[in-house]
């Protein structure tokens, strides 16, 4: 199974460990990822919040290249997945818009390729049985809260990964990997990552509320598929804890990192050393590394 790989800017920088673990896990599960040649930034929130056309044109360039490759797109980053999907849906719905975008990017675009988050690739193209069959170190005894955030699940119609109020697909994958998932209320509450640099105070409030709920339900760590959520929940955790006069110590990991451990990948290759809240003591305690 071959897919066009769109890592996106974050995975080449702050979310480097997501990139590494994605590539390793994909290899292990027989997913062939071919990087989209000379891919460019999807525009993130900045493009579509300041120009509707730019917000479609930037992702469209990458979709057009993938179309030339004749491959569906795998996009691990929640924001990239969201933006590529949104551009695709908007051009599907509006023929005139598609024509204009084709003119802007000076490439043909027919809307032939699908955009999938990596979790969806694992779930529907690899299958949970295959995941279970490849387990080496099941994540037994590790209680985790799957956190989906906004971009993966909202709004319906723009993205169609999972239910917007109670998504379960990450839970399913991690459960297949042997993990113990906590059922909790704040799976999709916004963590305010887009305000991280500009409205830090607000952001800390939102992060605090989410971590508080996860801790209350007994989670020992959080798994996510969004670089912004990961960074935000990880880096703002200390501030949030101070504000709430508590100490969370909840490592925030990419689901691919833990899946990698379960699949028997060497811990040293999964970027476990790159988090603010170090997950290694917990994983050692559980005998997973």
């Amino acid at each position, binding site marked *: 199974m071959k897919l066009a790989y769109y890592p996106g*800017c*974050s995975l*080449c*920088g*702050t979310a*480097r460990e997501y990139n590494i673990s994605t590539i390793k896990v994909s290899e292990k599960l027989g997913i062939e990822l071919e990087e989209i040649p*000379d*891919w*460019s*930034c999807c*525009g*993130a*929130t*900045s*493009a*579509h*919040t*300041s*120009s*509707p*056309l*730019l917000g479609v*044109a*930037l992702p469209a*360039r990458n979709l057009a290249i993938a179309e030339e490759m004749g491959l569906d797109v795998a996009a691990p980053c929640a924001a990239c997945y969201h933006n590529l999907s949104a551009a695709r849906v908007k051009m599907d719905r509006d023929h005139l818009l598609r024509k*204009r975008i084709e*003119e*802007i*990017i*000076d490439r043909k675009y027919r809307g032939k390729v699908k955009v999938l988050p990596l979790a969806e690739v694992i779930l529907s193209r690899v299958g949970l049985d295959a995941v279970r069959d490849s387990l080496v170190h099941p994540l037994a005894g590790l209680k985790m809260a799957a956190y989906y955030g*906004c971009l993966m699940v*909202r*709004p*319906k119609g723009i993205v169609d990964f999972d239910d*917007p*109020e109670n998504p379960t697909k990450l839970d399913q994958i991690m459960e297949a990997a042997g993990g113990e998932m906590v059922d909790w209320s704040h799976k*999709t*509450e*916004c963590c*305010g*990552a*887009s*305000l991280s*640099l*500009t*409205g830090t105070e*607000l952001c800390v*409030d*939102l992060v605090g*509320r989410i971590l508080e709920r996860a801790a209350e339900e007994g989670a020992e760590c959080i798994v996510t598929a969004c670089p912004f959520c990961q960074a935000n929940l990880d*880096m703002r955790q200390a501030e949030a804890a101070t504000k709430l006069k508590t100490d969370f110590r909840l490592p925030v990991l990419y689901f691919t990192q833990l899946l990698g451990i379960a699949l028997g990948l060497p811990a040293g290759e999964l970027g476990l*050393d*790159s988090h*603010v809240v170090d997950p290694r003591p917990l994983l050692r305690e559980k005998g997973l590394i």
Partner: protein
Amino acid sequence: MLNLQATIGAGREFTDEINHEAGTDINRCYQCGTCSGGCPLFYAMDIGPRQVMRLLQTGLGEEALRARSIWICATCDTCTVRCPREINVAGVMEALRIQARRRGYRIPAAVRKVRILTDLFLGSVRRSGRIFELGLVQGMKMRTGELLKDVGMGIPMLLKGKLSLRPHRIRGRAEIERIYRKVQEMEGGSR
């Protein structure tokens, strides 16, 4: 005293524009407040999304351009997925931000940073084709004068190799530049 006909009449074009940009119809709103009730940031807003919808319905949309709320909105889309009238509430907030920028509205000091970040971000993409995160953070510090903010986080990130020191430049930079210029032409060159 507000003359409703006057406001609705005068504001219709603006409301239509917002509707068009957000691909929605705010006249469908029946003011139930589900959007404000579920908004994670309503507590920090001056007026909630329900009131923003009402301002637009009554032709007072331009007032919404002055509201802090549109800059506080994190586009989490919780409002949109819950709206019983299928209004793209977050999309309306976004359309308002775009309008506020286009019309040169004074952006509240506390949230002016959003604009700076957006400009820096789009500039970075225009120059390199991808985002140069460290450059973005540095630019932010320069432009806001908050030189020491989050220094404690930046250094370990650098050490962990998470922030590259140089921007990655794609080969198709000329193509990106052309995209930016064409978009500018089509949108009336206002930026």
